[in-house]
């Protein structure tokens, strides 16, 4: 029983990371129709940005976090402006995918150069509080923050999208770019804010999970991308709450599967779920919310 609770908590922590990433990845896809394979690299670069200022100038947690988020947002805006913006006039989803492969190659190479082809870690005890140790469970600080920030970000993002003007505009553009423009929505503002929110969140996930899993490496972003993508499919593209729940489901199933079935089959379970959902319920568990693309 104790083991079960511990593993569920571990699963929730991992799942929060997947869920946050899924929200940021899904937001771009739902609003702009870009299936951005470079998004994982943006998370990695956010973590690298934070790591560099910690290593060089000994920044404490919060400023380092802000630097990492800013790095991710800037990279996201620059790639959007240079690579995706020129394609927006023509409607070609294939073009977006290929372009994002190009962006992915560039960002991965930059990340590898910055990391000097090594796997680095944040200094030990960079985040030391709060560590939760009881006779029942153990939760490392990284895990703790993943769960807390994950919960806050899903609530926050949902409130932004449902209650604020910009959120309504983002959803409107996702539904129909033409009709939202007719009603006076500026699609360039929407694109800018979507990219900023999404990449900022990716940066947060990158930093927190590299602290929780104790590595800063290119593989971190790749793992997030694959699992986040699975989470988006399981939870559905239309709603951030769905994407986050998808992440939790994937995280918990994965950890429990590794514990009770076989560690080797960890990924079989994840991607098996992915295929099952794609076939039987491609709109995700939480139903269909129509999404469209800026054309």
């Amino acid at each position: 029983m104790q083991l079960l609770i511990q593993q569920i908590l571990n699963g929730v922590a991992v799942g929060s990371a997947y869920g946050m990433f899924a929200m940021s990845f899904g937001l771009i896809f739902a609003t702009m129709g870009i299936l951005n394979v470079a998004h994982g690299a943006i998370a990695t670069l956010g973590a690298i940005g934070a790591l560099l200022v910690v290593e060089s100038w000994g920044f404490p947690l919060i400023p380092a976090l802000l630097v990492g988020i800013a790095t991710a947002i800037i990279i996201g805006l620059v790639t959007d402006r240079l690579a995706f913006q020129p394609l927006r006039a023509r409607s070609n989803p294939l073009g977006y995918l290929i372009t994002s492969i190009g962006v992915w190659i560039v960002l991965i190479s930059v990340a590898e150069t910055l990391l000097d082809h090594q796997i680095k870690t944040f200094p030990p005890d960079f985040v030391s509080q709060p560590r939760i140790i009881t006779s029942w469970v153990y939760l490392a600080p990284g895990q703790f923050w993943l769960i807390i920030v994950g919960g806050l970000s899903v609530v926050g993002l949902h409130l932004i999208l449902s209650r604020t003007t910009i959120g309504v505009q983002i959803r409107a553009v996702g539904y129909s770019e033409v009709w939202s423009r007719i009603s006076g929505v500026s699609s360039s503002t929407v694109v800018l804010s979507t990219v900023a929110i999404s990449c900022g969140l990716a940066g947060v996930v990158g930093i927190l999970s590299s602290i929780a899993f104790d590595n800063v490496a290119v593989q971190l972003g790749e793992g997030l991308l694959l699992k986040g993508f699975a989470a988006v499919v399981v939870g559905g593209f239309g709603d951030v709450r769905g994407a986050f729940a998808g992440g939790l489901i994937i995280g918990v199933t994965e950890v429990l599967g590794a514990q009770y079935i076989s560690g080797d089959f960890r990924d079989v379970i994840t991607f098996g779920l992915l295929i099952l959902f794609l076939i039987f319920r491609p709109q995700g568990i939480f139903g269909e919310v129509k999404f469209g693309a800026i054309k």
Partner: protein
Amino acid sequence: MNGFWNAYSANVEFALVAALFSLSAFLGLWSGVLSLAPIAFACGAAFTSARIDLDHPGLPLMAHLIIGMLVGAALAYVSSLILLRLDSHYLALATIATVLISRVIVLNLPQYTGATLGTPVTRIVSTWQLVLILSIVCLVFNSLRKSRFGYSLDAVREQPEVAASIGLNVLKIRRIAFVLSGVVGGLAGVLQSQLMQYITPDAFYVDLAFVSIAAAVLGGAYIWVGAVVGAFVYAALPEVLRPFLGNSKNIANGVILILIMVFMQRGLIDPVAIKRITRRLRNSIASPSQQRTE
């Protein structure tokens, strides 16, 4: 020339196989399907061939190629039953998932694949055989292009609804193209494993899949020549750029891909543009005065 060959023979050989990979990706695009799955079929074919080679050493190359193509076709057929039920984006995602799953399967069958340790492969293919195989495949593609099937592929790609309304069975045509991409993928997988002489689960993974599809689109996704040209350009670029860029050649690869998508969206070899240019040339030769008045 000899010096060049000594320095670059390995690159040329890999480029020949890369052309096969991007041809297999092109087959999907030709039927209007963005599919990364041929890499998964290549993976299955390569590990099967490697296993058979360990159990029955000394089989001729032809036997391995046929095994590869059969395994590729069988895997493609089975997965087409599931994958082709999906549409556009979801289909592309599911084919990426197929590649991910293929790696998981390889990792979980250690008695057949050696899991993370991988499997050694004896190389029996020579360079001229690679050239021959690629030429034959190209000939097949070329005759497909002007065939009834080739035209139906064009129709299905451009306007599936219209194609269906003139009596083409879109699903069936896509399925045939999918299985053919499995055949070419299986062939490429076996040859790739021979060139690498040692295959691990990472040998056939998303990066190879991305590069194959990127090469096909870079060369021009509207004609098979594009896939071959794209693969060669993609293989040659890092070598050409090495003196200028050193280790950042990958960055150049990515940048060039983005530039091509932004400025030449139809790729390097575009049949429509070529037709337009040749028509203009022919016109200007035939009646220069008329050309001027236009």
